[in-house]
């Protein structure tokens, strides 16, 4: 069979995409649909699925009356609204700094990316817990510097701060994407701005930031999705406490399913989280016409 006829063959094409299609159907589409069906039942993890009863929207309707859900939802929104802007700003700042032409800059880039390789894994979360414990590294440093220690994990306000900091620490991936975006901005724009006498700050606001908005948009979507799904940090560092101040929605979903065995309610919670993420993503896509600048559109509108 010649190369051309292979590409023309529907059968060969289908075979090529079969691994993905099968994987998608089995491990994404099926659980996706099954979880929705489960969310309409009173299924319990330890029972046979056949024993579950169809209860319609009861799981969803009862959610708002659940004080733990309301608390968890509030905590989750707070976490997302604080971490996403902070992480994006921090990643952009570091990317701009690492875009300078300095000797040994490759070394710095590697060093700054290192935390992201380690990520928010279980091991790092455990380390984080020891760092912020009352007798941990941070407080030892504070004591050494003559300040009193802070109850990082024992107070609702500061416990959340410790969890947020763990996410900010993993700024490397967003930073690398920003760095790639910065590299793609044509040098001649800055040269022209220099000739016009624009300051560095003005160049950043008028050139860098507008041309970086597609990358910013991509990072924004990724960070929103990841932040809503945060689990490791609160699970390992605080267990969701104190007083559920770090009880993010994914942790509640996990505990409802695997601690309390409420598979139906847990599935409903998962769907609520999915809808929230979908809404935020849709909102971001809708809003991009107002703040994301694509070079292609500029060309289409007669630009160069």
């Amino acid at each position, binding site marked *: 069979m010649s190369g051309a006829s292979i590409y023309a063959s529907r059968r060969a094409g289908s075979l090529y995409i079969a691994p993905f299609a099968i994987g998608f159907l089995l491990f994404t589409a099926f659980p996706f649909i099954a979880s929705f069906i489960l969310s309409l039942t009173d299924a319990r993890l330890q029972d046979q699925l056949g024993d579950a009863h169809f209860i319609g929207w009861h799981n969803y309707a009862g959610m708002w009356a659940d004080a733990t859900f309301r608390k968890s939802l509030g905590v989750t929104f707070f976490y997302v609204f604080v971490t996403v802007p902070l992480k994006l700003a921090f990643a952009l700042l570091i990317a701009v700094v690492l875009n300078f032409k300095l000797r040994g800059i490759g070394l710095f880039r590697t060093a700054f990316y290192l935390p992201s390789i380690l990520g928010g894994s279980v091991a790092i979360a455990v380390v984080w817990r020891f760092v912020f*414990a009352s007798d941990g590294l941070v407080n030892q440093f504070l004591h050494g510097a003559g300040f009193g220690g802070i109850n990082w994990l*024992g107070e*609702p306000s500061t416990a959340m701060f410790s969890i947020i900091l763990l996410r900010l620490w993993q700024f490397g991936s967003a930073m690398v994407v920003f760095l790639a975006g910065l590299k793609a901005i044509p040098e001649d724009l800055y040269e022209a701005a220099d000739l016009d006498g624009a300051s560095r700050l003005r160049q950043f606001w008028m050139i860098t930031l507008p041309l970086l908005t597609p990358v910013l948009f991509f990072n924004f979507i990724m960070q929103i999705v990841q932040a809503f799904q945060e689990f490791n940090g609160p699970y390992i*560092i605080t267990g969701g406490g*104190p007083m559920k101040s770090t009880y993010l929605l994914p942790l509640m979903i996990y505990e409802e399913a695997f601690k309390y*065995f409420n598979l139906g309610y847990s599935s409903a919670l998962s769907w609520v989280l999915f809808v929230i993420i979908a809404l935020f993503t849709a909102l971001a896509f809708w809003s991009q016409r107002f703040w994301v600048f694509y070079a292609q559109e500029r060309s289409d509108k007669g630009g160069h």
Partner: protein
Amino acid sequence: MTAPVTRRTALTGLGASLGGALAACSPRTAPGPKRQVTLRMSWWGGASAHKATLEALHLFMQRYPHIEVRGEYTGFLGHLERLTTQIAGHTAPDLMQINWYWQVLFSRDGKGFYDLNRLSKEIDFSQYDARTLGMGERNGHRNALSVGNAARLFYFNRTTYDKARLALPASWESLLAAGPKMRDALGDAYYPIDGTFQDFIAMARSRIVQKTGKALVDDVNKRLNCTAEDIAEMARLYAGLTRDHSLPAARVRAAFGNVAQQEMRPWINGQFAGCYLWNSSIDKFTDTLRPGEHVELASYPLIPGATDAGLLYRPAMMFAINHQTPHPQETALLLNFLMNDPVGVRAMGLSRGVPSSAIARRTLTEDGLMTGLKRDSEAELARLPITVLESPWFEHPRVRDGFQDILEMQGYGVIDEETASRRLYDDINAILTRVIR
């Protein structure tokens, strides 16, 4: 030889072709000529339990060459989730280590596990007392067999108490009084006893049961088995212990994050000078102590006139057989080997605490393994009045968390003692009504 084959086959529901080989054997000793069988056994535990169990399995396979056993072992964290999905997916191991409380999860009607009564030829039940056997029975079905019984007892750091010139508390009053004295002698970082909310709830339950003489949970009427005034004792005790510096306050404990008690520095260095702990777990706690720190068992505090110590005396862990196993006899042989056969018992040692099997206890005592805190704890349990049998629903995660949420709010000053008392009665009753099925 044919007749027993038929009987056994009828009992187990297996095909007649399997029977001949099995029937030829005397079940507890030598199973006779056999077909090759592969079993799976799951358990949780620490490194020492894994090592001991694997060694026991190795010896079992030497004894019964036609049976291969594959071990599936993890730490405690995540084990229930794993087992739950296995049971739901019909892929559970033949022999499972379970928690006492899990019986209400997996076998509400008693049929969720293999009825061990049907395996009385393979398993020597005469080694267990009636109370122990009863803890594994539901609706007339013998669901599981206790590996070892355990109860929470008071253990104190003798080194710290000596440093503070204090006697180990042997009454509730002396425990409450120890806080200010220890603080005055050693400083703010020292506490007579430490514990999670879960530990404290069990401790307060013990005191309430000593007063009422009844189990705290009435699972027939799905309510607390005490008055609002009785349960208010829990809020009162928590307020008293934390106010008097006898128990670290909620904020102090939370400052260490979600970390195991025995891994907290104040426990390691003796500043948290006591715990209310399962006697089966005390080794795990003494192992992490700084050299020179010495832990002792204290006399259990009893209120005057108490007819019951209020101990949560129950199986620390149990073995159950999968009700869908195709090899019930072979699995029963394994269970019996691990729990009642001197060879298996010696291999398992005290890795799962003091065994509940009489022959196992005797074997290990004769081998000189029952020493120190293990011996003292067993003696204390034998001395104390233990008649009340608590409902397993007391340990349901929703009930446990219900208690914890209210006490945590009290600890953080979000609600006062009076509100906490009222909510302990109303909220826990509501939870019990909802969860008990």
